């Protein structure tokens, strides 16, 4: 039996971390919750006496705010299309690199992974030029197959797909690494047995790979979804939320309301909506996974 550690030692070892997390995370969460029921704005920033309790007003205003619904719709578009696409590409490339035909696996893995570690702001800038309607590399390549020229970031119908393509390019390497490890944990005998019984490649994929990877896929789907709900830098750099608000995301809208216009009460209500949406999304994914089993 371990003896209880002395209080002074605990204070020394746990005090700093728990202190910082309490002061800069737990208390702010509670503060944000309280602020979301207040009309904290630029006047209250100057003097607290202008701060009033307004009940559910911010949340009711949100529901009646067309921009909130646009931001919500755009964010869901990004998450529901970009998320599965990212996970799919990650799985595809993981299987590709797991193939016995590939030599120099380490080199390929390194190259695929490079976009993950690079600075999002910098690559968003690079992609903004790649998407340039006249001089961009992408339209030049597409011109060879008779497509184009496409105004990727200037067309309200294409701006979000363009951001999704970039996000998939930037992120797929991360989940690929996790998938590769998952694939290597599947016993080779399973595939051998299935082959002997005459299972096709697709059948082996559907009946062995997918179920064996289910826990990995759940984990990846949840972290990808949580990350994608927080879309911000890509539209900030590439489109400023435009054209016609077609790439305005929840976090972008929260940033504008809170840190541009100092509608702090309203902005914290937005942040809480984001939290609730992420929470529900996570719970749904766990539920779906359970039903599948």
């Amino acid at each position: 039996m371990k003896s209880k550690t002395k209080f002074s030692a605990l204070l020394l070892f746990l005090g700093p971390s728990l202190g910082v997390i309490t002061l800069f995370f737990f208390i702010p969460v509670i503060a944000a919750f309280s602020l979301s029921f207040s009309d904290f704005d630029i006047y209250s920033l100057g003097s607290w006496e202008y701060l009033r309790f307004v009940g559910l007003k911010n949340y009711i205003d949100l529901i009646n705010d067309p921009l909130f619904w646009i931001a919500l719709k755009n964010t869901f578009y990004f998450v529901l299309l970009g998320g599965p696409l990212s996970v799919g590409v990650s799985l595809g490339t993981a299987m590709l690199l797991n193939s016995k035909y590939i030599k120099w696996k380490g080199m390929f893995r390194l190259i695929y992974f490079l976009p993950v570690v690079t600075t999002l702001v910098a690559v968003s800038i690079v992609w903004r030029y790649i998407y340039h309607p006249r001089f961009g590399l992408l339209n030049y390549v597409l011109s060879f197959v008779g497509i184009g020229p496409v105004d990727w970031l200037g067309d309200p119908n294409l701006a979000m797909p363009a951001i999704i393509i970039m996000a998939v390019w930037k992120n797929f390497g991360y989940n690929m690494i996790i998938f590769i490890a998952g694939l290597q944990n599947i016993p080779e005998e399973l595939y051998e047995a299935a082959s002997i019984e005459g299972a096709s490649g697709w059948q082996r994929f559907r009946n062995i790979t997918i179920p064996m990877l289910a826990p990995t896929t759940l984990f990846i789907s949840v972290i990808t979804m949580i990350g994608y709900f927080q879309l911000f830098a890509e539209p900030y750099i590439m489109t400023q939320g435009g054209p016609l608000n077609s790439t305005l995301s929840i976090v972008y809208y929260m940033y504008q309301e809170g840190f541009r216009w100092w509608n702090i009460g309203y902005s914290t209500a937005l942040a809480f909506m984001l939290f609730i949406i992420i929470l529900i999304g996570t719970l749904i994914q766990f539920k779906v996974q359970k039903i599948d089993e």
Partner: protein
Amino acid sequence: MSEKLKKILVIVTATIIAFMSLMPFVWMVFASFMKSGEANVYPPKLFPDEFVLTHYITLFTRLNLTRYLINSIVISVGVTFISLIINSMSGYAFAKMAFRGKKQIFNSLLSAMVIPGQVTMLPVFLMLKYMGFINTYWAIIIPGMASIFGIFLIKQYALSIPDSLIEAARIDGGTEIQIYWKVILPLCKPILVTLGIFTFMGTWNDFLWPLIVMTDSSMYTLPVALANLMGEHTQDTELMMAGSVITIIPVIIVFLALQKYYIKGIMLGSVKG
């Protein structure tokens, strides 16, 4: 499908994806050495007619990039070292010390991870503002000093350290601090490197928080400075590419030097799921 055809198909696909992954970086690097206007032509050029350093010189002389580079380095290195100490002390305590409510505290920390950081941004901003830390390095360093993910990572690793080792050190008369410093930290070195890279890169690449707390241009980090530069120099493609190269190079170097630890960290982080 014949075996040979399959093999060719796999290799060609893998090569095409590698090409697509690298192409934006290749173009970024070459465009950064082009003369002004050379990147805005049709058909687009991949190689500059002549390599010029004009844009790098402009960035470091007229546009103050040295200052932003220093800001980014001080903040990222600062957060990394301070958080490594604080998280490792905490992770060690959760792994090896006995106290009441340990499990409950640890579990509530873990479940708090579902709360997105954006929720706390406004209150933390207001707190730092009243403390007078806005537009100082502390505005980024202080909230980054401890992380739940970091504590979790260290705790998992420290669990594997045998108790007997700690007991032996204690019998030899080591104080708790000495044990932590001389026994635990050296044994935790691999996980410290892993967590260190994650923290460094996360801080270096971060955008939203520095954008919020650094409103004075002399305090910008590289990503914020770059985003700001983009507003004024949209037409200067070559200049923007040079700025992107400088922002990306440090993280690429750190990653290439320590990639084994980084990959391991991804795996450790996903074990929990």
